[in-house]
């Protein structure tokens, strides 16, 4: 349990507040990939940007999608927002990212220990596992819990000029998402490709 105590000592924050703080920092058309459900609802609510991509399914693929963006555009910073339950679906992706070690990828894990959107059931990891320790053991040495909001902002700032991938764990409350993403997958993709500078809108 000792490895878990650090996580439990971190402040319980709020997903929408942290997402808003992140978005306010982005000045260089950074790509942001929002995982399914609350993670992308709060990304949407924090203010739409052409560089935002919103997932409408395929739980667990926010980090792989962000990795693809990061590999295709090594000069652009890419941030992925994922829930703890989603990450548990695709833990192997952490090892792939550690192996490729893109310098331009920042991963944020919003950890509330529950599947909030389905009725707040605890995840199997909730009382036994430490997501950041899993990330470190997967080879992502630059992984840490954010102690509070200021620490989160500091970790984001550092990651945006890092020379390797960064993973930031944040403990969040059990609040649902703030907004609701418009569920139009083709428009989401077209606008994102426009935001990535690879396609003009009609």
């Amino acid at each position: 349990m000792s490895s878990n105590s650090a996580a439990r000592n971190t402040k319980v924050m709020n997903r929408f507040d942290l997402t808003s703080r992140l978005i306010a920092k982005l000045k260089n058309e950074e790509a942001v990939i929002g995982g399914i459900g609350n993670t992308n609802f709060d990304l949407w609510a924090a203010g739409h940007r052409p560089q935002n991509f919103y997932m409408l399914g395929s739980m667990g693929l926010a980090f792989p999608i962000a990795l693809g963006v990061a590999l295709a555009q090594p000069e652009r910073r890419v941030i992925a927002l994922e829930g703890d339950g989603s990450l548990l679906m695709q833990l192997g992706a952490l090892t792939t990212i550690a192996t490729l070690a893109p310098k331009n990828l920042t991963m944020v894990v919003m950890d509330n220990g529950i599947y909030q959107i389905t009725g707040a059931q605890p995840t199997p990891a909730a009382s036994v596992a430490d997501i950041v320790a899993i990330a470190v053991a997967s080879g992502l040495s630059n992984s840490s819990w954010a102690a509070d909001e200021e620490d989160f902002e500091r970790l984001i700032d550092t990651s945006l000029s890092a020379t390797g991938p960064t993973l930031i764990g944040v403990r969040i409350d059990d609040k649902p998402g703030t907004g609701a993403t418009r569920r139009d997958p083709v428009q989401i993709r077209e606008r994102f490709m426009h935001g990535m500078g690879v396609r003009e809108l009609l």
Partner: protein
Amino acid sequence: MAVAAEKNAPDASEKTWHGVVLQTLKRNEIRLVPYVPDRVLTPLIRGLHADPFFTTFATAREEEAVGIVSGAWMAGARSAVLMQTSGFATLANVLASLAVPYQIPLIMFVSERGTLGEFNYGQSLVCRTMRPVLDSLAMEHHTITRFDELEFIADRSIKQAITTQAPVALILSPLLTGGKTFDK
């Protein structure tokens, strides 16, 4: 050493099925090729690793690879995914919720196991799920059985996927690759 290296080097010429696939990927500017390995795909995977044109690497799951190439496509890079039949069987969710509705030209090469000499009953059952899944989503797919048709089917299918923004599965039959056989 030189002789050994030459012996181990994959034949990337267009005299082999894997050489044709590699050169067709290259001609179509497909540089990013994540895969979950398969015995039959080994010479193709070796060829991709040996050619600096390609960025190729293993992923832990096939759907992870689909996520990666979807992100790469949206950021301007062309990609393809390599897998075995049993790996395709894990993809229904990501095909139906990402590749098809977002109109991503996902290009998949699937090494077909489970037919024409399969020795593992489970593999033959998994194989039977593949085409019904593809058909249920109305996805383009071709089973390539003949070497003389390989380049045409692969090249045209890649171009069609990109221009129509629709996924395609290219199933590499044991008739083309030799497949995997029970030797003992």
